[in-house]
């Protein structure tokens, strides 16, 4: 079972698609969760996910707006997709049929 922040990061990588690197991943999480997460926290989690074999990293081209530094792109591996699907499905099943008063918010 994935941690909450791990789920957020994996979903953000998925959302960013081909353009998933530090800035876009953190951007997606900040936008959707309205939380100001640090880039370091995102990196730390990505490192952990990479060690678990859930994401794969590759190095991209340097761009001028980064002062000529390379990006590190991420993508989900097959086990990464599987784990994420399981976690989300568990949440959905747990929530199904419960009146959480969500509509009233």
């Amino acid at each position: 079972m994935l941690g909450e922040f791990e789920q957020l990061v994996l979903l953000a990588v998925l959302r960013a698609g081909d353009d998933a690197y530090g800035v876009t991943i953190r951007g997606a999480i900040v936008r959707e969760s309205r939380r100001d997460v640090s880039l370091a926290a995102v990196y730390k989690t990505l490192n952990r996910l990479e060690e678990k074999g859930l994401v794969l990293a590759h190095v991209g081209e340097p761009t001028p707006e980064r002062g000529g530094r390379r990006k590190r792109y991420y993508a989900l591996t097959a086990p990464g997709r599987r784990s994420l699907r399981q976690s989300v499905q568990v949440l959905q099943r747990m929530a199904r049929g419960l009146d959480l008063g969500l509509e009233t918010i």
Partner: protein
Amino acid sequence: MTRRPLLPPPRLALWLLRVALPASEREPLIGDLVEELATTAADRGEASARRWFWRQSAIAILTLRRGRRRAPLLHPTGDPPMLRFLADLRHGVRLLRRAPAFTLLSVLTLALGVGATTAIFSVADPVLFRPLPYPAPERIVIVGERDADGTMSNVGFLTYRDLARDARTLDRAAAAGGWEVTLDGHGAPERVSGQRVSASFFSVLGVRPSLGRDFNAAEDTPGTNQVVILSHGLWARRYGGDTALVGSTISINGAPFTLAGVLPESFESVMAPGAQIWRVLGYDESLPYACRTCRHLRMVARTRPGITPAAAATELSALSARLVHEHPKEYPAAGAIVVSLGDAATRGTRPVLWAVLGASALVLLIAVANVANLQLARAMRREEEFAIRAALGAGRGRLTAQLLAEGLVVATIGGVVGLIVARVTLGALISWLPPTMPRLSAIHLDQVALAVGAGITLLLGVAIGLVPALRERRSGLSDSLRGGKRLTGGRRHLARAALVVSEVALALMLLVGAGLLGRSLVQLLAVDPGFDVGHLLTLQAQATGPKYADSTAIFANHDQLRDAIRRLPGVEQVGTASQLPLGGNVDMYGVSAQDKPLANPELAPYADRYTVSPEFLSTMGIAIRRGRAFTAADNSDAAPNVVIVSAGLASRIWPGEDPIGKRIHVGGPSGVWRTVVGVVANIHHRALDATESSQAYIPERQWPYADNIVAVVVRTHGDPSTLARAVRAAAQAVDPAQPVTALATMHQVVASSTAQRRLALLLFGAFALVALVLAVAGIYGVLAGAVAERTREIGVRSALGATPGAILGMVLLQGVRLAGLGLVIGLAGALLLGRFLQSLLFGVGSADPLTLLGVAALLATVAIAACLLPAMRAVGIDPMSALRAD
């Protein structure tokens, strides 16, 4: 979102990030922060953006202590280990298919090693490791009389009877003697060998006939002993497995015998290998050959439970002392010797088998060293592959597993081919073994041998895989990636060099073994047997059937045989005798002299009894030392009884005296006195390496009875083998019903008396040859590899002015050093092995300097020749093209 940054990031923060962040995170993280700084500044203003940058940097520096770890290429959450191993195996097979020469060489080398070891193990297993195929085999013992010189001797019937009756440590006992018979009913006459045994014989062994019945005690008397038991094989082959025959009579030597029973198919005759028929002994004390000095029977017994052979020997020795006390003139010495049947049956062959088994193990070791060497060489060529895989995340364990899998694939194919080799060679080997080899019929490629072969194969796989894997572990992988064309070979060849050194050492050991055995055989064949071996043809004929009921008819048959053969062109002389020297017979009689009464019975000598036709001695070329030869007039029971003794017998009875005219008994203290008329040279009767025995020659018609089996010796003018066919035809024409067997030149008879040594030599020689070839291939391989790798270095050297001679010397020296070290280690090993071979050596010391130095010189010469080719190639390297290569 891609706008040019409006403001530069705070320098101090950047510097801190660069210093504090782990290397892997530096570039992407700083890039991300710098990129976002622009957007943040656009949203919230510069000051806020700068604060944001500082805050993010601080969090990163404080929390991102640990860089990211490289993810493994095959992640651990992926395939389970077994699947991964199978993938490795598949990969191994693919790789082997891509290198057919390497694969073929490895597989053949291993097949040779595994095949030889498995086949030899199958031969040695029954003798060395397996218990006898009888219930409680450790309780079955052979009992012998102790001779004056402490050796074990057969027993006379009365001795057997007394010991069997009185011994408390023996549960039961039996006596057994040899029996050569002709089966003449149910098809063509056929000679088979068997045993005459006490009625209790099979119950001593713990075996019951599977058909019919065992012998019973009532049959074990002189008048009623026309009863036989057959081996299952003989019954099935000759008598068609006819169960109705059991209980009825069959014809043996022209007389009816009751077929009492048939032994189980699984019965193995350990005491008399090759025996197929057993007759009840039927002795009692009235028989002349049942005396105490008629020591021609072997006593076999089953001890009571818990009684060791040593304990039985103690009691039997005490009983023997009593017998000697009661019959002081009939025993040379007091005491009994008891050994287990297993020891007695296999003692003679154990050293040979250990030596040959050891030799095959050495060959296996060399084969493994060679294949490991090949793998190493290949591993070096694959260094870049391994480096790339390591760089992509393959762990050391992963690479080791891969190499192990490849080793296992090679070893398994080699092992399977090796078992086929073992099957084929075992068949050939068994036909090469002397028929007297103990437990011959128990030799076959069984589960034990297969398990041994499979076990060896598994070990080989691990060894072959581990050697390159260990080397890989030590060498830095990253070096290889950086373009491994370094200048010198250096220590990288250490592992291969060590393997080559051990190959040379092992090859030397085997060559020395073969050399020592070969020299022993040469020495042995140079021994003067006491007769003239050249131009002699020999055969055996048997007078069998009712028409040879009395001795007169048999003697007449012998006369006819000699006459018929003598008439053939090319035949110089013909003689007959009751036995042949080196023919494998033991027919010894006690000899007592009239003028030396048995005052000191311990000195009464035994002699081989030869009843001969008058021409036998001159036909054989046995030299007359004193007195005269036999004349035709001697060969008559009406003539005065005469005897010719060997020089050894004469000097034992009458040291320093002239034996001519002295009178002796042959065969116990009773009987007729025979006058010594001549003394002849000693002959080797039992074996060329046995000490010379004594002989007493008696004209055949002066012996109380005629021997059914007669050995005919034919002296020819030319090559005796060209006369073989004519001689056989002439002998057969005398009586077509008469079996004529064992037709051979005397050279062949002498040679077959050394069959065991020949086999050992053949195997050692073959193994040594294989070892030599493998070792030479090893030296060549290492040097060729080294030269190929040092092409640049050698180019530089010759560009700097090294002469071709210097380069040749440099490469040669490398090979000579390897070979020299191997030779030194091998010589030490050979000295050890020689001590092991001691019992097989004859006329040559185990540390024979001529053999050691000769073999070392041979190996050194061959090794240098193997070095020359790569050395010449090194000389031929063109410095310019070598330097331009990179």
